[in-house]
């Protein structure tokens, strides 16, 4: 099912929780709403579900305005962070409750429960109560309950946040695969950028109720349109520091202070040439240590992160984070040379916080 959201706004008294959001979701697409907690993701989702009435704007399902449809007429399934299973019913009753309400025959309920339970790997738990299941099992039941009526739109509200890290990773893959196999249009709300980046076809980044960007994960990662996106996306987070742009002998440099400067390549030509202070961003993995030439620096801190060591050091006036191979056995106080891969650098206007490279 195709979903269109037009100027969607929600106010709670004085506060604007969702501020005029526009986006379209294609049939069968998996879209993530990504943003820090309190930014209005759940509110948006609940408006799509029909639980909240929009203050303004429209929600269209396959081109049809559904603003005034109650949840039961929207043909949706939803999975909650808290699982929201019915504790007084068995797993079987939980799974088949949507069918019971639709007055489906008992035979069909049994068949469908078995089908969904097998799909979710919970076939042996049908007689239990939710209270007798682990968190992961409960979330599978909740997912099964959302799927059993074959909805045309699936909504997820941080479904994995209450699970432990290992389970989260495996469930991530399962949900993604299930969604692709069944081809159900899905909206997945999360504050975890890794979930969004690994699962979604497109990501809507939301901050304070305002849509910041709506694009595919690669674009979001490589071409952040605002400073917020640059800060929010990527792990470890992007280095951001104030630099001064200066042209000299036909080349453009970013001065980091204390004589340290970096040449900006042709490919990163700024939209409008700003002479003066801008924000420069570069990801830790785009700074390479141990080359022959480059900017010399002293290591201030070494943080082992398993596969890499995260190093903190000072270049000019800026604190720089970068990754090195633990084999190099770098220690605090060692001096090394850094090469910045300026083909991957980002620039932002300090005032508007908009990218100087991308529209």
């Amino acid at each position, binding site marked *: 099912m195709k979903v269109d959201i037009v100027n969607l706004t929600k106010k709670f008294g004085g506060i604007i929780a969702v501020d005029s959001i526009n986006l379209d979701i294609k049939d069968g697409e998996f879209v993530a709403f990504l943003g820090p907690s309190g930014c209005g993701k759940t509110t948006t989702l609940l408006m799509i579900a029909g639980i909240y009435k929009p203050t303004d704007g429209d929600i269209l399902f396959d081109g049809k305005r559904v603003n005034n449809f109650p949840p039961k007429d929207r043909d949706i399934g939803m999975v909650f962070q808290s699982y929201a299973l019915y*504790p007084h019913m068995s797993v079987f009753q939980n799974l088949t409750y949507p069918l019971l309400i639709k007055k489906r025959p008992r035979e069909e309920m049994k068949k469908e429960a078995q089908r969904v339970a097998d799909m979710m790997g919970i076939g042996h738990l049908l007689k239990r109560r939710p209270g007798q299941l682990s968190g992961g099992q409960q979330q599978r039941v909740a997912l099964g309950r959302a799927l059993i*009526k074959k909805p045309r739109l699936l909504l997820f509200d941080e479904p994995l946040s209450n699970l432990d890290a290992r389970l989260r990773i495996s469930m991530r893959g399962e949900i993604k695969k299930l969604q692709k196999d069944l081809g159900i249009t899905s909206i997945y709300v999360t504050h975890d950028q890794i979930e969004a980046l690994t699962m979604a076809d497109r990501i809507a980044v939301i901050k304070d109720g305002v849509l910041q960007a709506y694009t595919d994960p690669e674009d979001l990662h490589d071409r952040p349109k605002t400073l917020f996106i640059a800060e929010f996306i990527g792990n470890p987070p992007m280095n951001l520091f104030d630099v001064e742009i200066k042209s000299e002998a036909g080349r453009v440099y970013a001065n980091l202070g204390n004589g340290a400067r970096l040449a900006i390549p042709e490919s990163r030509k700024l939209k409008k040439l700003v002479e003066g202070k801008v924000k420069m961003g570069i990801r830790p993995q785009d700074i390479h240590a141990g080359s022959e030439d480059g900017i010399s620096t002293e290591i201030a801190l070494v943080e082992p992160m398993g596969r890499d060591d995260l190093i903190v050091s000072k270049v000019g006036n800026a604190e720089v984070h970068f990754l090195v191979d633990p084999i190099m056995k770098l220690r605090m106080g060692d001096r090394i040379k850094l090469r910045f891969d300026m083909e991957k650098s980002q620039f932002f206007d300090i005032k508007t916080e908009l990218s100087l490279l991308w529209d």
Partner: protein
Amino acid sequence: MRFKIFFSRFVPYLLLIVVTLPIIIGYVWILISTFSTRTYGLLPVDKAGRPGGWTLSNWSFLSKPEIWMVTSNTFILASGLTIGVVVVSMMAGYALSRIKFPGRKAFLSLTLILHAFPTVTLLIAIYFVLRWISVIPVLGRGLPIIGGFGYNTLGGVILVSLALQLPLGIWLMKGFFDNVSWDMERAALIDGCSRFRTWREVMVPQIRPGIAALSIFSFIQGWGSFIIPYSYMVNANRATIATYLNNLLSETAPTNYSMVAAVGLFQLLPVLVFYIFTQKYLLSIFAGGVKGAA
């Protein structure tokens, strides 16, 4: 070391025993005196003051049809009150917990103030209301079993008791509903329930301990109520066990305290039995949790 453990276990019990002893002695005293002509302390004595004097005559009231009518009245009053309080409180509590409407806050504070109002101050006003209800055809005094809802009917007494009990019930039910997760309700709505069905099949089952507690509380309240049946039933001695008891105290001279004790015990017995079996639920009023709902 052992002594210490012994001590830490023993002392609380000792304290509890000391504190509850007077109450227990009171009950034992009542029990003994219902089977005695007179008592001297805890000791049953006969008319001359010699030990002995066991008798069943205090329980002779059980053979009068009056007591059974009064008991059935009391039962109808307690049951009617319970059903009314629980049904209305469950619905009102849900609405106040979950639905936003103008005047919600004001209504909540108002019910709390009403609850704080001493019943006695309302007696005269309520009397006029009941007289007014009496003139309504059928509803006033033309209904079977409860008689109607007007003055001098059992239904009228139930109605008044209900109104006075509702603030507590509504607040209690609101509190229990407040503890049920919103997500569960939303899940039910998305699964296809109407609002009413969500309430009935998903929300109400979560607050069963609260419903049980409120039922028991209301039943006991109705069973022992005195001032309202006494004020609004003309034949007070024929209204409920409590008024019957009161009548016994004031109209026989000299008062036969042993018989009063017997009637009192008769009234107390169902409550005691009830209490023993349901104290688990009653405690949940004070714990206020939904944990045990599953």
